[in-house]
């Protein structure tokens, strides 16, 4: 056959019938995938994403979707408790979503009715759940928000107040602090200086007095006087009188020297005599300084309640902050049409026409929450509903409301009621929470775990009511809680603290806590009142008052102890100075007496002499004995 010859070509119609089989095969394969494999893959995807989000294994027993029915069923949803992998944090028997076909054809996802059934809390797992290793990466934004709140609480209201007070009651603090300050006493140092000064002056004066008390000259004068007196020759007597005049001059000179020394000593003794007064003033100063160093705590009833419960309240606030941020992230306020900004040229501008018959992109109209539990099961008796979760709240014109109430008998939670409202229909979004739990078991709670004091309760029953409003970046929250039937635990090193706290706690069958917080997230003003705080603060106040007085006494006694010895020594030294002064005065008197006697003798010689001169001289010598 010639290749050039044209083979008659069969005329084919405009429809490509040969493509029908491949298309049919593709369609059947797609249907097969969605019928048999899609649910399994979706289940795996949900498990993986939820596990990553939770940080611990999340299991889903089965997922069932129906394209034709527009339904979604999730069965056996179990969330492992990260802290205790052998149990579930929460588990749900079934979650059912029924999508509206009418909306799906409009590319919108509207759930007309949904249900969440059989909620269990802390139910045991068949096998412990896998816990993901902690991520070393930087903390998430949510963690940062929570930390911001907790840091404010931590910085403002330190938790070690009870410990500090207990250590003060123990009595260790004043002593320790005073021991540290011992070297800083000004009075002690000054007294030492004074003693040294007095001692040196004493020794100087003693040697001076010894020098001045030398009677050798007086004795030689006395001998000369005697020899002159014994002279019979009148001429020689006249010469003797002249010699006596010379001797008188010598005595007068020595007496003058003693007198000058006496005046000088007297001046110095007077200045030393001012030392005791100076010491007294210094002691007063020292007491004042020590009191300043000794930190006596100011106990405020409000601060005590804060110290006791700020951590718990802070946790509530941090959680509120977290959920507010989550709500903001996942339920963004829909911008008004006028606010749509022109997009880039390449992507054009997308117009939003008024929605008249259609639906928002996502709208969960109502999800019923129901669960029936028995006393021994972990299921809660819960009923409630979640309504109007939508991406277009302004169009729906209804706020998102989660209203749940019920009990979880297995974990001791009774009379739980929570109404959470997220209102994005207004120009300013507002989120509200109204939560109440009539009774729940409180596990061990320690207010103080310091070495000085372990104080708290091992078991109690609590009730709580929490209301919160968050609007325009501001939060307003109030917390009313009670702790009843507490089994208190008090273990203090100080017997006084032990007795005090035991007495206080015995008198408090129910602890009431009222807390409020308001302001911007970055600048919260928190206030907490509690009868426990008041009782502890008042009891502590009285005891601390006593301790303060005791501490002051200790300061005084410490000063006395340190100062008394040196002060006595100083005073005795000063007494010694008085002796010296009196000796000097005696010397002065002695020289004056001698001077008078020599003068009298000279007069006597001038008149012709006396027979009893010898006896007079002997008497004079007797007086020279010092």
């Amino acid at each position, binding site marked *: 056959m010639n290749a050039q010859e044209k*083979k008659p070509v069969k005329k084919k119609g*405009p429809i490509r019938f040969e493509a029908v089989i491949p298309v049919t095969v593709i369609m059947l394969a797609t249907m097969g995938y969605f019928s048999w494999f899609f649910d399994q893959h979706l289940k795996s995807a949900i498990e993986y994403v939820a596990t990553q989000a939770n940080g611990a294994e999340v299991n889903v027993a089965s997922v069932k979707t129906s394209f034709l029915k527009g339904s979604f069923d999730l069965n056996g949803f179990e969330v492992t408790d990260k802290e205790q992998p052998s149990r579930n944090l929460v588990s749900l028997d079934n979650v059912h979503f029924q999508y509206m076909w*009418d909306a799906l*054809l*409009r*590319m919108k996802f509207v759930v007309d009715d949904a249900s969440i059934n059989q909620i269990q809390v802390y139910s045991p797992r068949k096998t412990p759940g896998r816990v993901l290793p902690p991520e070393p990466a930087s903390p998430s934004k949510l963690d940062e928000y929570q930390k911001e709140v907790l840091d404010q609480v931590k910085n403002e209201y330190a938790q070690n107040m009870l410990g500090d007070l207990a250590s003060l009651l123990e009595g260790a603090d004043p002593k320790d602090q005073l021991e540290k300050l011992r070297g800083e006493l000004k009075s002690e140092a000054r007294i030492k200086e004074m003693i040294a000064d007095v001692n040196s002056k004493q020794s100087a004066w003693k040697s001076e007095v010894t020098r001045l008390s030398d009677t050798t000259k007086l004795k030689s004068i006395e001998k000369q006087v005697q020899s002159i007196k014994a002279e019979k020759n009148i001429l020689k007597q006249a010469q003797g009188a002249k010699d006596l005049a010379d001797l008188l001059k010598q005595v007068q000179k020595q007496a003058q020297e003693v007198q000058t020394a006496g005046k000088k000593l007297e001046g110095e003794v007077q200045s030393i005599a001012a030392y005791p007064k100076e010491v007294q003033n210094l002691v007063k100063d020292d007491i004042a300084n020590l009191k300043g160093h000794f930190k006596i705590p100011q106990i405020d009833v409000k601060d005590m309640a804060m110290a006791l419960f700020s951590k718990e309240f802070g946790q509530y606030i941090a959680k509120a902050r977290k959920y507010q941020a989550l709500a903001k992230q996942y339920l963004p306020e829909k911008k008004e049409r006028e606010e749509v900004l022109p997009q880039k*040229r390449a*992507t054009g501008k997308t*117009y939003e026409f008024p929605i008249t018959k259609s639906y928002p992109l996502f709208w969960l109209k109502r999800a019923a929450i129901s669960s029936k539990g028995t006393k021994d099961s972990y299921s809660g008796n819960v009923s409630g509903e979640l309504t109007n979760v939508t991406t277009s709240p302004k169009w729906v014109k209804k706020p998102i409301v989660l209203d749940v109430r019920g009990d979880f008998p297995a974990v001791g939670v009774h009379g739980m009621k929570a109404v959470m409202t997220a209102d994005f229909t207004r120009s300013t979004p507002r989120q509200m929470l109204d939560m109440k739990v009539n009774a729940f078991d409180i596990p061990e709670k320690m207010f103080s775990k310091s070495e000085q004091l372990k104080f708290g309760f091992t078991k109690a029953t609590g009730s709580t009511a929490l209301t919160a409003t968050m609007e325009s970046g501001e939060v307003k929250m109030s917390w009313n809680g009670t702790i009843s039937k507490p089994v208190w635990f008090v273990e203090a090193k100080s017997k006084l603290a032990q007795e005090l706290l035991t007495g206080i706690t015995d008198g408090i069958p129910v602890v009431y806590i009222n807390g409020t917080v308001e302001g911007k997230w970055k600048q919260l003003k928190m206030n907490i009142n509690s009868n426990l705080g008041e009782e502890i603060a008042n009891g502590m106040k009285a005891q601390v008052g006593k301790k303060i007085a005791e501490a002051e006494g200790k300061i005084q006694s410490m000063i006395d102890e340190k100062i008394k010895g040196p002060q006595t020594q100083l005073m005795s030294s000063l007494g010694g100075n008085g002796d010296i002064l009196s000796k000097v005065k005696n010397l002065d008197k002695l020289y004056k007496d001698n001077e008078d006697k020599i003068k009298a003798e000279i007069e006597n010689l001038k008149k012709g002499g006396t027979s009893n001169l010898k006896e007079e001289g002997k008497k004079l010598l007797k007086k020279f004995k010092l």
Partner: protein
Amino acid sequence: MTLLLKQLFGFFKLLHSETGNNQLAWGVALGFILGMTPALSLQTLLVFFCLFFFRIQIGAAFLAAFFFKFIAYLLDPVFDVVGQKVLDLPALQGLFTDLYNMPIIPFTRFNNSIVMGSGVVAIILVPFIFAGAKWAIVKYRISVVEKFRETKIFKIWTKTSLYQWYYKYDSYFGN
């Protein structure tokens, strides 16, 4: 990929045959629509359906789409302006609102200015593209293919055993 290559080879084969003018011209015209449309939308799927359901040369459509995509990229600002003009027409606001609220129609993304602009331009130009493509194919066949067939090289080539073998193979398995 095999399917695509087969279609491309088919395109060249058909281009050099004496039949299939309309198939090729429609392929180019629908390729023009595909090229002009900025992203995947309902109308794109509709064009694909037409390509697969009707006997339209798919290779021609893909080649044309590839070619017109570059032109469309340059024309995006024009489409944007046209689209905005159309979407802003007061008389059509009611229609657009209805369409926006109807099922399925929003999948066309008609409310996007570039989609609307390119769609309007494509619909207006499609008849011209079809007519132009058909005229160009006929002209190509007369002025290029026929003249090439008359050359000695081609005549020698048709006498080779390889060509004979291919011709025979094509008569059994081609198309």
